[in-house]
C-alpha cells in the first residue's frame, strides 16, 4: 500500500471519516439540522473526491478487493449524489417526527458507504461486505421513525428474506471457490476456462445461487414477493434509498461480476435471465394496475423497471451489442435513480406533517394540481418519466433499452417492453388524472424548504437531461467502452 493507493481510496476514507464524525457529534449533541448538515458536507466532499480521483488517478486494483476505475467512479458518484438528495428529503421528513431521529441519517450514510463499496468491488469478499453493510443499515431504517406495526412488519420481512438471500449468495460463492480456488472476479474467469464437466456444474450452480440472491435484493420476479409490503411499510426516504442506492450498488457489482467472469457464456443462465426479464416486466406492470396506494404502485413499477434493466443486461450477452447494452443499463439506472428519488421524495414531502404512516393513498393526491401546482407538476414529471414520455430523462432511458434490444435482436424482450409500457401508462396516468380532479377538501399542504429545493433540483435535472442528455451519454458511453 503506497500513497497512490491511499489517494485512490480517498472517497471511501472521507466517507468513513465523516460517518465517524457524525456518530461522535450525535453522541454529544442531538440536533437533526446539525447532523444533516454534517452528513451533506461529508457526502459532498466525498463526491468531490470521487471526481478528483476519477479524473487524475490511474485505474487499477487497490488491494485485491477494491478496483478503482471509470466504472466505479461513475457508480459511486451516482450513489453519493443520490445520498445527498435523500438526506435532504429525510431532513424535511424527520423534522416533525419527534425526538431521536438523528441515527436515521447515520444509517443512511452507512448504507451509502456499503453501496459505494459495492461499486468498487471486484472480489466476493468486498461484494458481500458492501451487501451486508447496505442490508444491515436498511433493516433499522425501514422500521425507524414510525413506531407503527407496518414498519416493524416490513423490517422483519426484509430482515428474514434479505438474510436468506445473503446466505444464497454466500453458498454460491463458496461453491465456486471450492472449484476455482479464488474469489476475485477476474481470476475466477481465467481459472474457469480449465475446468472439467463436473466442475462446470459446480460453477453453474454457484452462479445460479448468487443470481437468485441478487434477484431477491433487486426484487426481480420470481423473487419479488417482499417488495410491496416493505415499500409500503418503510418510511418514504428509506424506501427511496432501498429502491435506488441499494439496488444500484448491487446492480453495479452484478454487472461487473458478469463482465469480468463472463457469466454470459452459460446459455442456461442467459436464458433464465431472459425469462426473469420478461416475467418482471409483465407481472410488475399487471400487479401495479391493481394497487390503490402510491407506494405499492411504485413498488410494482420498480419491479417492472428492474425488468427493463434486465433487458439491457441480457442484451449484453450478444457480442455485437455488448457495448450498447452496457451503456443502456448504466444510463437507464441513472434515469431510474433521479426519477425514483423524485417520486418517493414527493410522497415524503406529502407526509412530512403527518405523525403516523405515510400519506400514500391515491385519494390524498386528489386535486393536488389545484392545491399545490408545483408539487403536482414535479410529481407528474416523475411519473411521466417512469412512463418514458419525451422531455424527461425516462424517455432517453427507454430509448436506450429499446436500442439495446434491437441491436442484439431480442425481439421477444422488446415485445414485453412495449406491452409493459402500455400497461404502465395506465396506472401512471391514473395518478396524474386524480391529481387533476377537483376535491372539496382544501387541507393545506406545506412544502418544507429543504425537501422542496431537493425535489425542484431533481425535476430540473429530469427535464434538462431529458432534452439535452449529450454529456451524460458521452460519459456513459466512454465508461462502457472501457469495460469491454
Amino acid at each position: 500500500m503506497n500513497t497512490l493507493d491511499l489517494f485512490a481510496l480517498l472517497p471511501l476514507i472521507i466517507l468513513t471519516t465523516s460517518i465517524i464524525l457524525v456518530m461522535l457529534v450525535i453522541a454529544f449533541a442531538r440536533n437533526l439540522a446539525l447532523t444533516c448538515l454534517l452528513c451533506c458536507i461529508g457526502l459532498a466532499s466525498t463526491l468531490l473526491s470521487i471526481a478528483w480521483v476519477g479524473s487524475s488517478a490511474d485505474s487499477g486494483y487497490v488491494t485485491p478487493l477494491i478496483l478503482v476505475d471509470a466504472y466505479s467512479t461513475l457508480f459511486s458518484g451516482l450513489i453519493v449524489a443520490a445520498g445527498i438528495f435523500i438526506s435532504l428529503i429525510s431532513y424535511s421528513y424527520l423534522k416533525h417526527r419527534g425526538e431521536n431521529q438523528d441515527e436515521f441519517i447515520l444509517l443512511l450514510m452507512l448504507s451509502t458507504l456499503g453501496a459505494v463499496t459495492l461499486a468498487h468491488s471486484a472480489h466476493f469478499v468486498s461484494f458481500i461486505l458492501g451487501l451486508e453493510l447496505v442490508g444491515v443499515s436498511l433493516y433499522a431504517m425501514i422500521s425507524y421513525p414510525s413506531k407503527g406495526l407496518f414498519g416493524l412488519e416490513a423490517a422483519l420481512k426484509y430482515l428474514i428474506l434479505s438474510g436468506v438471500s445473503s446466505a444464497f449468495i454466500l453458498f454460491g460463492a463458496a461453491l465456486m471457490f471450492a472449484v476455482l480456488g479464488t474469489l476475485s472476479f477476474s481470476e475466477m474467469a481465467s481459472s474457469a476456462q480449465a475446468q472439467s464437466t463436473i466442475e462446470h456444474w459446480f460453477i453453474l450452480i454457484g452462479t445460479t445461487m448468487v443470481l437468485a440472491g441478487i434477484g431477491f435484493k433487486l426484487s426481480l420476479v420470481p423473487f419479488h414477493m417482499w417488495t410491496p409490503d416493505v415499500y409500503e411499510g418503510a418510511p418514504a426516504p428509506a424506501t427511496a434509498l432501498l429502491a435506488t442506492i441499494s439496488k444500484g450498488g448491487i446492480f453495479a457489482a452484478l454487472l461487473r461480476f458478469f463482465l469480468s467472469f463472463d457469466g454470459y457464456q452459460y446459455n442456461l443462465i442467459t436464458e433464465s435471465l431472459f425469462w426473469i426479464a420478461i416475467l418482471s416486466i409483465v407481472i410488475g406492470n399487471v400487479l401495479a394496475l391493481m394497487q390503490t396506494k402510491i407506494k405499492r404502485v411504485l413498488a410494482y413499477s420498480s419491479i417492472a423497471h428492474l425488468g427493463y434493466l434486465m433487458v439491457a443486461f441480457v442484451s449484453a450477452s450478444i457480442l455485437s451489442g455488448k457495448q450498447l447494452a452496457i451503456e443502456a443499463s448504466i444510463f437507464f439506472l441513472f434515469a431510474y435513480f433521479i426519477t425514483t428519488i423524485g417520486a418517493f421524495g414527493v410522497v415524503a414531502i406529502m407526509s412530512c406533517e403527518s405523525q403516523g404512516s405515510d400519506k400514500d393513498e391515491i385519494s390524498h393526491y386528489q386535486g393536488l394540481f389545484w392545491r399545490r401546482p408545483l408539487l403536482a407538476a414535479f410529481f407528474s414529471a416523475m411519473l411521466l418519466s417512469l412512463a418514458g414520455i419525451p422531455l424527461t430523462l425516462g424517455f432517453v432511458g427507454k430509448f436506450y433499452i429499446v436500442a439495446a434490444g434491437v441491436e442484439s435482436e431480442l425481439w421477444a424482450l422488446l415485445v414485453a417492453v412495449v406491452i409493459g409500457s402500455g400497461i404502465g401508462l395506465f396506472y401512471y396516468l391514473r395518478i396524474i388524472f386524480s391529481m387533476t380532479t377537483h376535491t372539496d377538501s382544501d387541507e393545506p399542504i406545506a412544502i418544507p424548504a429543504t425537501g422542496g429545493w431537493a425535489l425542484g433540483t431533481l425535476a430540473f435535472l429530469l427535464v434538462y437531461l431529458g432534452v439535452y442528455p449529450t454529456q451524460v451519454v458521452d460519459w456513459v458511453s466512454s465508461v462502457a467502452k472501457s469495460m469491454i
Partner: protein
Amino acid sequence: MIMLLTILTLFIGGLVAWSIEAWNKDLPRWISVGTCIIASILIATLYFQPTQQELMLAGVSSTWYEVLSIPWIPRFGIGFVLAIDGLSLLMVSLTLFLGFIAILSSWDEIDRRPGFFQFNLMWTLAGVVGVFVALDLFLFFFFWEVMLIPMYLLIAIWGHENKAYAAMKFFLFTQVSGLIMLVAILALVLGVAGTGVPLTFNYFDLMGHQLGEGLSFWLMCGFFVAFVVKLPGFPFHTWLPDAHTQAPTAASVLLAGILLKTGAYGLIRFTVPLFPEAAADIAGVAMTLGAISIVYGALLAFAQTDFKRLVAYSSVSHMGFVLVGVFAWTELSIQGSVMQMVAHGLSTAALFMIAGALQHRLHTRDMTRMGGIWHSAPRMGAVAMFFIIASLGMPGLGNFVGEFLILLGAFSINKTITVIATMGLITGAVYGLIAMQRVFQGQKSSDPEISGIKFGDFGSREMAAMIPMIIALTWIGVYPQPVFDLVDPVLASLYELTLGTSSQWIGASQ
C-alpha cells in the same frame, strides 16, 4: 432558424400564459392570440423566401425553404434537424390557422384554470409544428410524443362526463403505437448502420438504403401502424369517437383539424418513401382498409344520435379517403390526399365548433332532443348548412377537389376499391343531411329542459372564426391551384423516389 423560433415562440407563449393566470384570468387567451400572431408572421416570411435550398434525397433533388441542422446527441448521430418544404409549410400554416380558431372557439367556454388551458393549447400546437418540420427521426418521435401530453390534459381536465376513460384511451392507443414506431425507427437506424454507414437518424441519410426484404417489411409495418392509428383507419379508429365526444371544443378542433393530419403526413413523408417496395406490397391491404374506413365510418356516423360522435365517425370516413389516396400512390391521388387533409381539417374543425356551441347553449349533444334551431339561430343554421354541404363533397368546395382527385387517381390502380370508396360520397350526403334535419330543421324541441332555453345565435366572435374558414374552403374549392403549386414539387420528388418500384404498385394492388 425561423422554424426553431416558431416552435420556441409557442412553447414560451404557453409558459407565459400559464404564469400570468395568477394575476388576471382574461389575459392568458390574449397571450395565446399574440403568440399565434407572432408564430404566423414568422411562418409567413417563409412564403416570401427568395432562395431555396436544393438537397439530394437518395439521388433525387428536392427543394427546401429552410434547413436547420445542429448536432444534438453525436453518440447516436442524432441531430436537431428541422427542414421545411412546401408540404410542411402548408401543414404548418393549417396548424397555426386552426390554432387561432381553437382559441376563439374556447373564448368564454373555459372558466377553470384558463392559463393552464392555454398552456396546453400552445404546447399541442408546438408539438404538432415540430412533427411537421422535424426531419431527424429521433426528433420526429420526440415531437410525436410531446404533443400527446398536453392533449391528454386538455381532455382529462376540461372534458365532459366520461373524460377519464376517453383521455386514457386516446393516450394508450397513440402511445403504444408510438412505441412500436420507436422500435421500427431504431431497427431502421441500426440496420442502415449495419451496411457500413455511420450511425444516423437523419431522414436524408436514411433514405434509399437496401435492407433485407423481410426486415424492411416489418419496419414499414411499425411506421404504418403508428400512423394509421393516428389517422385513424379501421380497425384502429375506436379511440377517436370517445376522445372527440369528451374533449372540450378547442381540443376537438385541434384533434380533428391537425392531430389526425400528422398521421397522414407521416404516411406520405416517411412510410412510403423510406420503404417503397414494402409499402407497395401492402398497398392493396391498406387501400382496402381505407375503403372499409370510408363505408364503415359513414354507416356508424349515420347511426349516431350524439352530434359530436357523428362528426367523429365522419372523420373516420373522410380520412379513409386519404388512406386510399396515399396508397394508390399516383401523382393525382397524393395531391388529392393533401387537398383532402386541408379541406377536412377546415370543415371538421368548423363542425366541432358548431357542436361545441350547441352543447354550450343546450347542455346536451343528443340530436333527438334538438330540432328547429334554425328559427332561433339563423346565422348558426346557415353556417352549419355550409359546412355540412362542404363535408359531403359538394363541387365548388375544397372537400370535393380532394375526394375527386383521390378517386380519379385510384381508379387506374384498383377499380373495385375505388367504386366502393365512391359510395362514401353518397352515404356522406345521407348522414350529413340527416344531422342537419334533426338539429336545425323540423319542429322545435318539445323537451321541457331544452325548449325553455333562450337560444342565442352566433355572435361576432364566433362568426369571426367561421367566416375565414368559409372563405378558405370556397377558395380552395374554386381555385385550388395555389395549394398545388406549393406541394407539387415535394410530391413530385417523393414520387420520383419511388419510381423504380412503381410497376409493383400497380401489380400489387390489382
